[in-house]
């Protein structure tokens, strides 16, 4: 009898742990849980305290041409990404196994590619910038599709967000909206305005999948293996996915392993180089 009871207890505990935990549909609570589960809410005031971060990784990439053609897979020898949600801006520095280096930047309503070095020619000898204004929307989309970006975008959407349960998972759907300048996020969405974003949460309310259909293409990012990826003597209790897979229309275009982060709001700025400002003014 005791064995039977013990067996039942083990079965019940196992079953309970296997069930999805994220069943909350109250919007405010879900917003809170999303931000809190990533470690974004800090101090007793529980303020969104993720403004900037850096990430280092590696993996594979396939280029997507303007006509939608997807190129061959290339090894990413190193990836270094900077995010500054208050600009809002993102700088992604990729070195492929072939040695080819690309530095793609978006800052507010401007986008450019930096050549040779970070800096975009803001100072003589520190790289140069090639305007890439046609990439603004897609790069902003990538930024708002990051876990922190998606949470900030959902919270910015406020009452326009809906929370549902799909397949036992909590799903938050909302349109991307322009926002007011705040301390930790300045929602600039440009052409993305009104584009619906669907965020599927894992059992701990962390973004597991972010989907957006924009200009007729479906972009899906999948996030897993969350952890504090800062170095061992610089832990911050801010959680980032160690594995990121991105698809476009169902085809893998990015498979990244994030090895390291600095989530202590490192010094990251995204000034728009003068040449890019001129291009943006045209």
């Amino acid at each position: 009898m005791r064995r039977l009871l013990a067996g039942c207890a083990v079965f019940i505990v196992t079953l309970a742990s296997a069930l999805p935990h994220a069943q909350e549909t109250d919007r405010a609570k879900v917003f809170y849980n999303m931000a809190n589960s990533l470690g974004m809410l800090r101090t007793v005031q529980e303020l969104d305290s993720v403004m900037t971060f850096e990430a280092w990784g590696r993996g594979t990439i396939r280029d997507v041409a303007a006509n939608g053609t997807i190129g061959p897979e290339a090894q990413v020898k190193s990836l270094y990404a900077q995010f500054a949600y208050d600009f809002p801006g993102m700088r992604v520095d990729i070195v492929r196994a072939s040695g080819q280096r690309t530095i793609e930047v978006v800052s507010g309503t401007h986008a450019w590619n930096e050549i040779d070095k970070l800096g975009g020619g803001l100072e003589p000898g520190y790289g140069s910038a090639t305007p890439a204004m046609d990439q603004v929307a897609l790069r902003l989309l990538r930024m708002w599709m990051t876990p922190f970006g998606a949470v900030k975008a959902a919270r910015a959407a406020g009452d326009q967000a809906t929370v549902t349960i799909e397949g036992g998972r909590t799903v938050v759907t909302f349109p991307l909206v322009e926002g007011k300048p705040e301390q930790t996020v300045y929602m600039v969405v440009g052409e993305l305005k009104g584009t619906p974003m669907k965020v599927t949460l894992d059992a701990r309310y962390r973004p597991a999948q972010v989907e957006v259909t924009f200009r007729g293409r479906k972009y899906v990012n999948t996030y897993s293996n969350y952890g504090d990826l800062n170095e061992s003597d610089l832990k911050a209790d801010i959680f980032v996915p160690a594995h990121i897979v991105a698809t476009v229309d169902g085809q893998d275009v990015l498979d990244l392993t994030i090895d390291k982060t600095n989530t202590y709001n490192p010094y990251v700025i995204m000034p728009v180089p003068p040449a890019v400002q001129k291009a943006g003014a045209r």
Partner: protein
Amino acid sequence: MKQRFVGGVRYAASGCPVRMNRVFAGIGAVVAAFALMPAGIAAQGGNAAAMKDAASRPTPRRSNGVPDFTGIWVQTRSRADNVPAALDKTTGTYTNILRGRTGNPVDFERDSGVRQRVVPREARPWYKPQYWERVRFNDTHGHSSQAPDPEFLCMPPGVPRLGIPQEIVQTDSHMVFLYPLHTRRIYIDGRDHPPEEQWLGTWLGHSVGRWEGDTLVVSTVDFNGQEWLGWPGWFTSPDKRVIERIRRVGNTLTWAAEVTDSLLLQPWKSGPQTRMLDANPMPEIEEPLPCIERDLQHIVTRERG
């Protein structure tokens, strides 16, 4: 703004840590740690009514017609904001300590470290790209021997990191700005800075002031380039020049500063900060604790908050 004491560290009005005599070192210091609020939030919690009343008073003037800045200038929060951890006599435990997400000292340190680095883009100095990496290095090594924050080593904070003066003594020829542990002399007799070849390279610089209406405009040059603008690794060069604007309205004093430096893409602004004249007819200032750095060799983490 307020000062608070955590683990033997005195946090300055700017929210930046100032390493103090480590009398309280160790676990006992953690237990004795005072309440902590993010500096920016604390600064907003001012006594608005008292401030309005202070500003409505007549502005005293000297015989030559300029405003008189003489006085002790106090923070504008209510005194209750400075009350540290309270001992609950019924339980023998402290409440209101380590105000992170939880009472866990690790959470407190990490929350503070994350939150103090939340600096809006306009408030971050925009360094030229060749210095971005150094700022990040300084930031993550600010409490190590590799790139120590000079304040952590008990060096003078420099200008404008000192912020608004705690006390001002004014004559017709000069003013004396008094801060805890530091003093500046501002010449307002019409003299200019010494020629650049005579500069010495100092922590607090050479300051001259002139009046623009009721606003004192203080120009400061001749720095040593070792002082930082702020806690997150914001280093400077000897080229730094600082313009402070200080204005008295009634019994309030408002201070703001603008920094130019060859390291920066554009001028960096600090402030404004406003203080009220100490209403106590017989005000006193407590002697500040001496600053002696004894921690550096014992620190085994780059976390700091």
